């Protein structure tokens, strides 16, 4: 099965990226295909500049998922609006357009959105 996770919230403020990490890791371990799209504020989680001494490092977690086979892309326009540069992204992750999100949706068996829930 192919599962796509779409995340909108920023790292460390909301739990969504942590939840997606745990779900994605387990899905990959069970042989499922995983795609993750980082949308709106979650794009900040792709920054390789994040330093969190003594705490979980979310971009490194994304790299770990990518190494296990997860396809991870972030919204390029969202990155530009927030001052993140293409060459600052965590290894295994890349910026892309929303067309990639469309492809992920079109080719997934399950799509799970992690939004703001305001």
């Amino acid at each position, binding site marked *: 099965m192919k599962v*796509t996770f*779409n995340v*909108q919230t920023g790292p460390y403020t909301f739990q969504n990226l942590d939840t997606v990490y745990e779900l994605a890791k387990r899905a990959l371990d069970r042989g499922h295909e995983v795609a993750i799209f980082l*949308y*709106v504020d979650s794009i900040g989680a792709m920054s390789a500049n994040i330093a969190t001494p003594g705490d979980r490092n979310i971009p490194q977690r994304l790299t770990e998922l990518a190494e296990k086979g997860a396809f991870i892309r972030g919204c390029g326009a969202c990155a530009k609006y927030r001052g993140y540069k293409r060459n600052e992204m965590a290894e295994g992750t890349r910026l892309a*357009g*929303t*067309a990639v*999100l*469309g*492809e992920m*949706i*079109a080719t*997934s068996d399950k*799509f799970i*959105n992690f*939004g*703001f*829930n*305001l």
Partner: protein
Amino acid sequence: MKKVLIVARTSPYGTVLPGEAFLAGIALRSMDIDTKLVLTDDGIFAAVKGQKAEAIGHKSVEDAIGSAPDFGLPVYLHREAIQERGIDPSQLLPLEMIDANTLKDMVKEADAIMTF
């Protein structure tokens, strides 16, 4: 073909979210993905006519929502959300209204749902 439902639940300008709901919707429609946008809860305010977004240096969410049908993106207004807020429908863009049962059916039919 996959059916996508985008649900905008938050008021415009306070957060970027209803604008992002519109952008995601037209992006998916441009790929010929069957996509609907529903405004509910405070997202209803995105369809209020006469927004003066330029006064705060923003792009008009009203203009964005109003242009959605031109991009092939149908927009629906949740009737109960309008009533709960005491909004007169004449204050809103002329978009199709749906009740909670129709919204429930849309949720059931959708393969992918994004809330904003």
